[in-house]
């Protein structure tokens, strides 16, 4: 049985299917993300396929600032992905909200809504950096599946559900005030 388990664990790193979600970016990060899939970078060499269906995906690539409107969509997509899964936040906006972080409609980085495994900085990041991010995310979820300690990959900022919920309440009060 352990041979089969080893093969499955090995396969996890060799066959990452990605789904890409744009939380309202300026399109810069999206173009770089899609450039990764072109024949120039040819990520199918590593078994990476862009699937467009969260139920089939292993890695969620998120670009752009999360706002109060799309945080629910982001959460739903994350919850529809079967375990084991990894989340890669791409670009300055995905990491922290970027230059838009103080806007009234912006929640902040992706990690305010869902737990993020890998941060790929840049505005926009290079395609090579995005490939590196996906590979790091895969190593992390393979380690998790083997039951290893993943603290060496520890995320920069812990996932704070309470803060995200408070944000959701804020937008409702703002809406009532405006109305």
């Amino acid at each position, binding site marked *: 049985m352990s041979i089969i388990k080893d*093969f*499955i*664990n*090995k*396969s*996890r790193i*060799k*066959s990452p*299917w990605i789904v890409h979600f744009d939380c309202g970016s300026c399109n810069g990060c999206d173009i770089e993300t899609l450039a990764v899939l072109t*024949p120039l970078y*040819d990520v*199918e*060499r*590593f*078994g990476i*396929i*862009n*699937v*467009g*269906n969260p*139920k*089939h995906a*292993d890695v969620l690539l998120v670009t752009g600032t999360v706002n109060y409107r799309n945080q629910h969509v982001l959460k739903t997509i994350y919850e*529809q992905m*079967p*375990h*084991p899964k990894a989340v890669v936040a791409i670009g300055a906006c995905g990491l922290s909200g970027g230059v838009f972080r103080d806007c009234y409609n912006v929640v902040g980085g992706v990690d305010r809504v869902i737990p993020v495994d890998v941060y790929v900085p840049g505005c926009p990041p290079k395609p090579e950096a995005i490939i590196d991010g996906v590979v790091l995310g895969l190593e992390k979820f393979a380690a998790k*599946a083997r039951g290893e300690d993943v603290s060496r990959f520890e995320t920069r900022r812990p996932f704070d559900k309470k803060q995200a919920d408070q944000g959701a309440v804020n937008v409702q009060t703002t809406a009532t005030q405006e109305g």
Partner: protein
Amino acid sequence: MLAQYIMLVFVGLLIAPVAGGLIAGLDRRVTARVQSRFGPPLLQPFYDVAKLLGKESMIVNSWQVFCAYMYLLGAVLSVVLLFLQSDLLLLFFVQAIGALFLVFGAMSAPSPYSQVGAQRELMQILAYEPLLILVFVGIYLATGSFQISEILTHEQPLLFKLPLLFIVLGYALTIKLRKSPFDFSTSHHAHQELVKGVTTEFSGPYLAIIEVAHWYETVLVLGLVALFWSTSLWGMLALLLGTYFLEILIDNTMARLTWRWMLSYVWIVGLVLSVLNLSWLYAS
């Protein structure tokens, strides 16, 4: 005799999916080379399936799980029947039931993508089933039997008698493998407007089951192709390689058209070619 049967069943059960997976891997590599890319490793389909088997099982309803297993069972049974050199009509009905269970599985989920995929899959089944039956009728007229073991004793390659029906089988093969221009219900590349069609709601281990069933189906249809040159091993191999390479080329050079186009085009071309070939057989 019994030992021979057991060996044939073993070949059908275990060697067929390995061959199907390798063909899928080769397909992806050749496709990549055609698009001037390097392409994934040859064993990539096996990595994909192993990974999917290791994922959490998220199901919409239990009927869906049943349908995935029935699809696999239909595909496996038809391949085993092929290797046991059984009746072509029996094989045809078993594979049709398997194909229909995939549609039932997709229909059981209320997702619009899954529903659209299921409807399109039904259209595809509607397009290729009559053609497949006509090919079998042609084989019957040429050899006098639906039994594969008797067809194999035919001393002359069937291709010489049924050249037009071989083209018709090629259409059925392209639809069955869900390759362009007939990739309506789902395709490997998952074009965004369809997401994944008929397989949208299947995930994790159940998607792996469907993938393995698809390998079996590939072997089944290629086995039917091989029947057309069953007299020599080299002829059979050349025919298989040639047909599959042409299939990959067509996949890469054609765009997807509409299902209405598929129904009218495939039926008109398929029926005309079949009738021509059948009447020629009848006259000679």
